């Protein structure tokens, strides 16, 4: 009976948890941005105006988020084209746009939509892209992200990340919930929730599973949960702390941290929880293992030399080499998808900030201007870094371009957000 009551309360709380959304705020700008005009898509039927607007708004917000586009105001242009034949190029040259997006939305039977869009080069007066989608109405936002990715890829020359997902922990009303959301912070889904802390979510390379640390057993234990079935297994519940999971690039193993010998050391374990093997042996703290994209090397945080610094060693274990040398406190290493850049948290005279180190030249650049930054991770195209920071005493998500020129805050609506990780491209 009592259990049922608790379950009822849990159900009552669910909507509160899953409705906490994040919105994007741009707080900086790149020197060179492509000016683009996105005309609100026409409705060929009586679809709600707010809904049609959504497409162009979402596409615009995505492109703005990348920091590489200047999204122009189109309200000043009286004639809004929806078909190629309706485009009056002089109108668009007049507001100095280089690219123009137009499109239509048509309602189909069975709550489906036909969305078509075109990308036009205004200077050359030719069509760069044309695409049609037949989708269920609930996929409208996802389709807008796909369109933004196509525009991004066509004009920038590399894959976009707007249709990818992020994960983070949201603390609200004394409960912790691990959530997965679209890259822009919308459409959050709760993966697991607990009144004890949840930390360190790590995406499996195929994006179908999350490994994370839960304190629900009154101590840190590593779980692996399928995002498809919702089923989860205890990956590591050994004596002491079990934490800091990181998947190997082939998805067969995870590096984890155990305090088996009283001191945090790095171990490798198969994804089904078998075959535990210790790979780091030091008298200091060794934690936050991060696999290199080629699987050969593990980067990690260690205080073996005094304060915490980032080191690397062969993934099968072996001699460790120090990687960071600037400053007395460098933690939370994450590698770019090409393995050439390292992002981490660096303590400087003005607090804890996101830094990027070029692993070839050793050059370090501090990206953020906030003071309590945590857990940076690269977007799958390596262009941006997602991290957690604290504004007004509450955790929030932020993203910065790798060159540090563009920074934006993903503003939440009430929760205390931490521990973000950017997922990979699906399929």
């Amino acid at each position, binding site marked *: 009976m*009592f259990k049922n*009551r*608790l379950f*009822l*309360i849990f159900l*009552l709380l669910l909507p509160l948890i899953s409705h906490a959304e994040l919105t994007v705020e741009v707080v900086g700008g790149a020197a060179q941005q492509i000016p683009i005009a996105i005309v609100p898509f026409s409705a060929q039927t009586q679809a709600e105006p707010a809904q049609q607007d959504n497409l162009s708004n979402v596409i615009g917000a995505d492109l703005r988020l990348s920091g590489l586009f200047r999204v122009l105001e189109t309200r000043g242009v009286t004639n809004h084209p929806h078909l190629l034949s309706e485009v009056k190029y002089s109108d668009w040259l007049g507001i100095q746009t280089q690219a123009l997006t137009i499109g239509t939305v048509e309602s189909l039977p069975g709550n489906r939509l036909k969305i078509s869009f075109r990308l036009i080069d205004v200077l050359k007066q030719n069509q760069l892209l044309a695409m049609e989608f037949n989708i269920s109405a609930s996929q409208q936002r996802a389709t807008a992200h796909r369109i933004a990715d196509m525009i991004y890829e066509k004009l920038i020359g590399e894959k976009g990340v707007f249709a990818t997902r992020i994960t983070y922990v949201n603390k609200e009303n*004394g409960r912790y919930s691990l959530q997965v959301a679209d890259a822009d912070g919308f459409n959050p889904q709760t993966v697991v929730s607990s*009144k004890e*802390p949840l*930390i*360190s979510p790590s995406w499996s390379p195929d994006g179908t599973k999350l490994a994370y640390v839960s*304190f629900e057993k*009154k*101590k*840190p234990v590593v779980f692996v949960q399928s995002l498809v079935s919702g089923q989860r297994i205890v990956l590591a519940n050994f004596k*002491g*702390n079990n*934490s*800091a999971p990181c998947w190997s690039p082939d998805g067969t193993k995870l590096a984890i*941290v155990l*305090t088996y010998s*009283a*001191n*945090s050391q790095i171990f490798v374990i198969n994804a089904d929880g078998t075959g535990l093997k210790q790979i780091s042996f030091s008298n200091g*703290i060794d*934690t*936050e293992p991060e696999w290199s994209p080629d699987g050969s090397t593990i980067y990690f*945080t260690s*205080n073996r030399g005094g*304060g*915490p610094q980032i080191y690397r060693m062969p993934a099968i274990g072996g001699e460790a080499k120090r990687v960071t040398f600037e400053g007395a*406190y460098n*933690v*939370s290493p994450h590698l770019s998808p090409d393995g050439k850049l390292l992002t981490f*948290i660096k*303590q400087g005279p003005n*607090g*804890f900030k996101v830094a990027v180190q070029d692993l070839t030249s050793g050059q370090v650049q501090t990206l953020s201007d906030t003071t*309590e930054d*945590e*857990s940076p991770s690269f977007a799958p195209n390596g262009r941006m870094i997602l991290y957690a920071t*604290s504004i007004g*005493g*509450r955790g929030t998500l932020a993203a910065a371009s790798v060159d540090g020129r563009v920074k934006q805050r993903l503003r939440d609506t009430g929760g205390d957000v*931490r*521990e973000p990780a950017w997922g990979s491209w699906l399929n």
Partner: protein
Amino acid sequence: MKKSLLMSLLLATTLVACSNNAVKEKPAAPVVDNSKSTQVTQPAAPAIKEEAAATPAPAQPEIAVNPLKDPNNILSKRSIYFDFDKDEVKAEFRPLVEAHAKYLTANPNAKVILQGNADNRGSREYNLSLGQRRSVAVKKAVNVLGVQDKQIETISYGEEKAKSCKDETCYQQDRRVDIVYENE
């Protein structure tokens, strides 16, 4: 009529569940502890007198006060504080560590959990490891004084129990190991 009944039922269940949660979240709720702590008191008696003699507090009436709860007894002090990114037990906490070591050796059935914590700056994972090292540092300090391994459990909350601090005075409070006796 039926609706209002349902509503009040819902409200009632909410209250029940909430109040129960509140109890669960406070591990050291004094009401729960009283019955058990009197049991602990008996074997602890010899230690009390020693400690009471050592403290320059005004003479207390000779009743079986639990030394662990007696505010005049150093054993009631349970927190050892650390410097930023450090796990050394500072000299000023030696008397506290020694008093608990003495109590634990005198009461071989008593058990403690050493809970390590860190302030909320830097990495959560590094802080989890740092909290662990702090609790192990306290364990080693009492081990040296004769306390057996089986009496001690070390755990770390990292920065998960830290307050949202803005200044050093506040951060300082979070960098600590709490000594929690079993059944407390």
